């Protein structure tokens, strides 16, 4: 024994076996990849069914390869070697354009088809009046006691939006009854373009540190939007649609690109990348049109997005379900955000550490895991049976989904509030701030990005839910957009479910269902990407 030991010392330190560790490591890797790979295979399969890229002419593929893919690879490769930050900006600009285009589609559905522009305009005017009054009130913040200010603000909003029937006309009523009303595209330019111009103007003023530059940027944004509406019809594009797309997609993307380049000069090459992708796609589209190459016979096409259900899979579309999903999202966000954030603030900042609090704590965690069909039953029981609401409306659908995601919103908001450094609270209390002042001025502003991210991810869960909607009696098939809170509502996943169960036929399975899934996933991906970008942005700042 002794001699053996001696010789091993002489040879060096010897080896320690790592076989078990190595096997364990690759098993873990396999476990990590299992779900992702399975899902990816399914998605490729579905996307292939929905888009059918192989049905396109070879010339179509070749044209796009030459105009779009090849230049993108070349420019991207060059940038990857020299200036990765710039490449990242270029990618962000392209991504922002895609996501904002989808978003503008949603905005167009809401502000053109669901809410008539004139109605929207009248309420916008009412809101502007109320907000202006509120801003005026904050000037006297220190003279008027808090409760009086809150009461005055509430009264102001109520009077300007609803009026007093019989005595005092609300502002929306007055606007709608006005003898001369502007046409739809002017209204859209004023409302949507106006909001965009305000945001863009402030953003540019901040990055340039020059109020005049901001004013110029805002004004040119507004002029650009109006110009599009005037020029659009001449080349055969609907003025209203163009206004929405310009205001919600083009102008903000351009402002983001411009603003980033102003703050960091060295990122300019990134714009070349973005331009290569955008111009390449446009040139390719024009070229295949001119050369007469047929594109793929995709099921996810314009017709699918803009028509409603039909007996034949070829003519079936998702439009009312898309509108329904959007309305549901708005309702869910409006209900779950204040409730969830309120509960989170109470539990984190106010609740004493006692049995009652711990009881609530445990139950919220459990509620997050309750099956969605149970929430559907709750919605049916409370809203339909007990409160006597009609089945399947936007309001009760939204309320049920809001209950479903409430625990998730509470948990993620608490996480965000807990991550605010305690030093900041101490500093605030040390200055003689009350708990409410500390929460309002220090904790909530710090936690807001995290709260927003969590809420968006939770909304993503709600948009994909089917079971609760079935339970509350939402119709499987809807031929018209829901226009009010009390209209019947359908949603994208419900429509897909109906196609694969009620209308089960080979045609629907292979055409309408994959097309619907692709749209649903695209919307979900867009929402999640917004959440992830938000989170990265604020994580890198702190």
């Amino acid at each position, binding site marked *: 024994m002794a001699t053996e030991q001696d010789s091993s010392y002489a040879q060096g330190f010897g080896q320690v076996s790592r076989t078990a560790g190595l096997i364990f490591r690759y098993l873990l890797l396999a476990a990590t990849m299992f779900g992702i790979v399975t899902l990816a295979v399914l998605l490729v399969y579905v996307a292939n069914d929905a888009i059918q890229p192989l049905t396109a002419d070879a010339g179509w593929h070749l044209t796009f390869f030459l105009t779009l893919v090849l230049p993108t690879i070349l420019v991207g490769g060059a940038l990857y070697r020299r200036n990765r930050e710039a490449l990242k900006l270029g990618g962000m600009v392209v991504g922002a354009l895609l996501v904002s285009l989808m978003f503008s589609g949603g905005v167009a559905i809401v502000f053109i088809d669901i809410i008539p522009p004139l109605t929207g305009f009248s309420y916008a005017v009412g809101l502007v009046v109320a907000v202006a009054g509120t801003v005026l009130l904050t000037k006297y913040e220190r003279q008027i006691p808090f409760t009086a200010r809150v009461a005055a603000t509430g009264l102001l909003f109520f009077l300007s939006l609803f009026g007093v029937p019989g005595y005092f006309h609300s502002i929306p009523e007055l606007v709608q009854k006005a003898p001369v009303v502007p046409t739809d595209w002017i209204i859209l330019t004023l409302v949507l373009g106006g909001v965009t111009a305000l945001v863009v103007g402030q953003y540019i003023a901040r990055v340039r540190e020059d109020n005049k530059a901001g004013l110029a940027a805002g004004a040119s944004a507004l002029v650009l939007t109006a110009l599009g509406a005037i020029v659009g019809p001449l080349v055969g594009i609907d003025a209203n649609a163009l206004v929405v797309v310009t205001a919600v997609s083009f102008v903000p993307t351009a402002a983001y690109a411009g603003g980033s380049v102003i703050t960091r000069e060295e990122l300019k090459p990134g714009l070349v990348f973005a331009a290569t992708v955008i111009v390449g796609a446009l040139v390719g589209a024009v070229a295949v049109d001119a050369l007469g190459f047929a594109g793929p016979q995709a099921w996810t096409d314009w017709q699918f997005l803009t028509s409603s259900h039909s007996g034949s899979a070829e003519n079936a579309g998702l439009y009312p379900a898309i509108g329904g999903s959007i309305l549901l999202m708005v309702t869910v966000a409006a209900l779950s955000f204040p409730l969830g954030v309120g509960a989170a603030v109470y539990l984190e900042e106010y609740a004493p550490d006692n049995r009652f609090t711990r009881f609530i704590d445990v139950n919220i965690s459990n509620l997050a895991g309750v099956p969605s069909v149970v929430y559907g039953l709750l919605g049916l029981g409370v809203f339909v049976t007990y409160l006597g609401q009609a089945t399947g409306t936007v309001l009760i659908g939204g309320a049920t989904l809001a209950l479903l995601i409430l625990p998730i919103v509470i948990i993620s908001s608490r996480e965000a509030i807990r991550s605010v450094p305690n*030093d*900041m609270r*101490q*500093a605030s209390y*040390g*200055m*003689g*701030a*009350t708990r409410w002042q500390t929460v309002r001025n220090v904790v909530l502003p710090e936690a807001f990005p995290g709260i927003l991210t969590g809420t968006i991810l939770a909304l993503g869960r709600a948009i994909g839910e089917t079971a609760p909607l079935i339970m509350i009696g939402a119709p499987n098939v809807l031929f018209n957009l829901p226009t009010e809170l009390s209209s019947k509502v359908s949603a994208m996943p419900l429509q897909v479910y109906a196609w694969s169960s009620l209308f089960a036929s080979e045609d629907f399975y292979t055409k309408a269902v994959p097309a619907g899934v692709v749209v649903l996933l695209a919307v979900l991906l867009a929402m999640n990407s917004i959440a992830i970008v938000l989170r990265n942005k604020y994580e890198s700042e702190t």
Partner: protein
Amino acid sequence: MTGTNDPTNDEMLVETDVSDGLSAAESSVTDDADIVIESEDINVWYGDDHALTDISMEIPENSVTAMIGPSGCGKSTFLRCINRMNDLIDVARVEGNLTLRGKNVYDDDVDPVALRRRVGMVFQKPNPFPKSIYDNVVYGLKIQGIDGDYDQIVEESLKRAALWDEVKDRLHESGLDLSGGQQQRLCIARAIATDPEVLLMDEPASALDPVATSQIEDLVEELAEDYTVVIVTHNMQQAARISDKTAVFLTGGELVEFDDTQKIFENPESQRVEDYITGKFG
């Protein structure tokens, strides 16, 4: 604070610095100075842990009172008794009397929030809000509903905190973009903007480099002309340089000696204090 038995350079440094510091701070305390804070048998418990035992002392007006002692001896705890920051800790319990200008701050009718508006505080780690420099300074004014020319108050407070020249061109940039020393002076500007009667400082320079530390020390001495400053430090040279009175806390949460700084450092009554100051105990 270990390494007690070898008479190394450290110890030499302590002694030379102490004598230097004394000539600078040349006892400006007058015996008939008004007493602002008076504590009488203050005891603090954190749960079952007895953190402070029978602390009694009198803190005179417009002076710097330093509290020194090893880590965990309760000097920060006592500081937090003065503006009742311990109330924010669920398990903390305070007994005894602590009067601010004759009024016991632990009386039932005292609102701790109102108390903290009269007693400013600067913390160990610089903790400006993630707001602009301007908004940091006016924070106290806004929450306390103080009227006035904010621009002027911001300028005055920043000047008094010796920060104005460095930030006057970028008042609307984030306070977090400043260096550590600048952030701490911003916190001091924020604390004095509301013109408190007493300024509590909890090791305000312990997270800073030597240059920033000496700036803060100069500042503390200047502030003592108008404010009653109570400063916690575990740096004995610092206490010797800037304070008029010194309280020595030792392990177990007791106040061992409280007297004029000069006396504490030159001729302490207690052997334990002498051991601590000369580095034989720590």
